């Protein structure tokens, strides 16, 4: 077991190193940030001074070395744009992203799971077709469009909700819906397919043969088992909601991590983009590592695999 955990941890570390190298190089492919830190027509001296200040005049391998050195000390560097530590920025935005992500997740599960069950139970009938339409719209309508349509309806025409910003529960409703909408569709689809798979299994047939009511079969036997992959997906989606709600947070001026990433990309703020991507990546890697370990505990065959 120890060897298995060590091996998985090694893979996780390697993944993070590769991620750091990838994001370090890819963000630099977008161009020189100094052009966005000055007005057009800035003097060469000013551009050179900015490059020197942020170490951008150094060769790439030195910049990467400095970045990794700081990372090992727990320092993600200072934002070019805000000129404050990236970790401070991240932590200041994290509560907002958590609130939004948890709300959006609650909404997506409350909508996605019941509609998925209904579609699976009524397969081929009206509710199944309605569910398919919902999934199609959820997965294909871009969140910025959903967001803007909601602003138009609820803020401009009905005047029920504030158009943007953060503060109270009313501010949260539209961004949570716009963010959760896509994930609700994904959860609905997975719940439906998982339920259909479970409903066709032998133990469900046995339960029915034993004379259990259909509601009892669905609620007690099918639903619990069908829920496992949905919960696993929801866990990963929650991390995605926290870190990459870029469009929704921008449209609704929600001050979370997604918008921080948007700002980082907009201003070629390399340390911010690197920091946000790495923390998000680390969250996913750690979750996957924990899942691997749990699987290995549950099923000893896994840890014996080479």
């Amino acid at each position, binding site marked *: 077991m120890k060897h298995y955990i060590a091996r998985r941890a090694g893979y996780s570390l390697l993944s993070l190193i590769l991620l750091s190298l990838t994001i370090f190089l890819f963000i630099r492919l977008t161009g020189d940030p100094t052009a966005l830190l000055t007005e057009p*027509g800035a003097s060469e001296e000013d551009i050179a*001074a900015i490059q020197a200040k942020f170490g951008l005049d150094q060769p790439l391998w030195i910049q990467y070395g400095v970045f990794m050195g700081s990372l090992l000390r727990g320092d993600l560097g200072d934002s070019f744009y805000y000129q404050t530590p990236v970790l401070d920025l991240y932590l200041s935005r994290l509560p907002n992203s958590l609130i939004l992500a948890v709300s959006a997740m609650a909404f997506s599960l409350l909508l996605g799971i019941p509609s998925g069950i209904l579609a699976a139970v009524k397969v081929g009938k009206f509710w199944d077709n309605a569910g398919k339409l919902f999934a199609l719209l959820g997965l294909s309508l871009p969140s910025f469009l959903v967001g803007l349509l909601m602003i138009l309806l609820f803020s401009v025409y009905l005047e029920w909700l504030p*158009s943007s*910003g*953060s503060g109270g529960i009313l501010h949260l409703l539209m961004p949570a819906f716009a963010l959760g909408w896509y994930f609700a569709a994904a959860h609905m689809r997975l719940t439906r397919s998982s339920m259909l798979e479970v409903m066709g299994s032998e133990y469900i047939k046995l339960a029915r043969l034993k004379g259990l009511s259909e509601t009892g079969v669905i609620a007690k036997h099918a639903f619990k088992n069908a829920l496992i992959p949905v919960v696993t997906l929801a866990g990963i989606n929650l991390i995605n909601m926290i870190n990459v709600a870029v469009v929704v947070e921008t449209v609704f001026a929600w001050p979370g991590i997604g918008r921080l990433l948007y*700002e980082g990309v907009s201003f070629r703020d390399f340390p911010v983009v690197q920091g946000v991507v790495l923390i998000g990546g680390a969250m996913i890697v750690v979750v996957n590592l924990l899942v691997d370990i749990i699987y290995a505990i549950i099923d000893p065959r896994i840890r014996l695999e080479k």
Partner: protein
Amino acid sequence: MTSITDRSTEPGAITRRAGLGLFISSLLAGQSLPASAAASGQLNIGVHISLAPTWFDPGETPGLITPYMLIFALHDAMIRPMREETPGHSLAESSSISPDGLTYSFKLRQGPTFHDGSPVTADDVKFSFERYRGNSNALLKDRVASVETPDARTVIFKLKEPWPDFLTFYTAATGANWVVPRKYLEKVGDAGFKKHPIGAGPYKFVSFQPGVELVLEAHETYWRKSPSIKRIVMKVIPDEATRLVALKRGEIDIAYSIRGELAVDAQRTPGLSLKIAPDGAMYFMYFPEQWDPASPWSDLRVRQAAFHAIDYKSINDALCLGHCYLSSSIVPRAFEFVWQPPAPTYDPAKARKLLAEAGHPNGFDAGFYWCDSSYANLGEAALNNLAEVGIKAQLRPIERAGFDKGFTDKRYKKGIIQGSSAAFGNASTRLSVWAVKGGAYTYGSYPDIDELYPKQLTEVDRAKRAALLEQMQKLVYEKHMFVNLWQLAFLNVAGPRVAEAGIGLVKTYVYTGPYEDMALKGS
């Protein structure tokens, strides 16, 4: 000694305008604050960009206009763009320059205080200059031999050698003359200052939530005038459409940067009014092949044809609702030493005639039209006009940073380049970068212009320098090195509660200001 804001032609003389400026400044310095009702109400501004704490500190001013949105509220400077005059005396009551151009003296006005109640002193001015580390820092400080403060209200800058652009850099192109409190900064340090900045400006810092909002409160003993609005809240709303909705719903009172069709929508909405800041960046066409004898662009008549081919007014009406400023010069109208050439004229018949005379009766293929993708719409409109007279080119929009890099690396040797500049400075600094040999953006130059450039750079006699710079600008225009398309207007919208949005009141400044002049209806 001559006053620094003096625009006279004779050394030592004071013109009516400069005299009036000094008189106004002295008058304001001498009088007590106008009796007014206590500040009241709250005004919310929807800003288009995330506010960065580094902008609270004028000592770190980068080469961007945006930080001045905050600096004008929180801080004050010795000389700066004022509503009455640009540049005008602010914390400085008076100023002078020695005949040899080596000594610049400033006298602080009596009375201004920082937000913590401590007086603004000469020592704070010196400290602010010395701690400045932002844009053009080395360029400025390398030329200053010493800063002396013989008493609490006098500051004297001594230069190593005459440098006529000292004031341009000290008061406009850098943040070095914005005054911060020495004692407070030494107590809290740079990081502490960014968390809770204290300045001498019309508004005090209250709170800041990164990415959310900045709250400011009136500095009721501000020397120029007590602000009438008690509280100003800057809310960050990056999406333009959302910003306009927030304004329509009354969640904010001013929305920065509302463009194109959204601006038309705002204009049509009862209660909303468009507020224009006209002094944005210059946008122009540049012909890098004009020095290549084999190119059609080397013929002056072809460049003149391009000048007459552009329907400036229609483009301005379509893209900028007619609010951009149309001029034939790449030097902004508010810059020192600017010379205004004749206004641009749209005359396609004349353009075709000039092309025919140049040996291109059927026009020619100009290759690519390189531009920053953010302003590809302007390029597209210009290209359509050029095509109408026979100059055909393909639009090549490139993302801004890549475009700038390609421009300065001289990669666009063929075709037409749509240049732009929002850099601070004066006519000399603008020409040095774009029109003179060795400039960052110059693909070639003309000897007669190059010859004049170093002469004006060291000319301490202001009138003579102005004449040299006028001559340079005339040559640039006559040669049609550039075809200026417009000076961009910054479009903003104010809501029904706003009596004075303060936009466009101060020349060269595009955001709200003076903050102390802003007012809500009934306040």
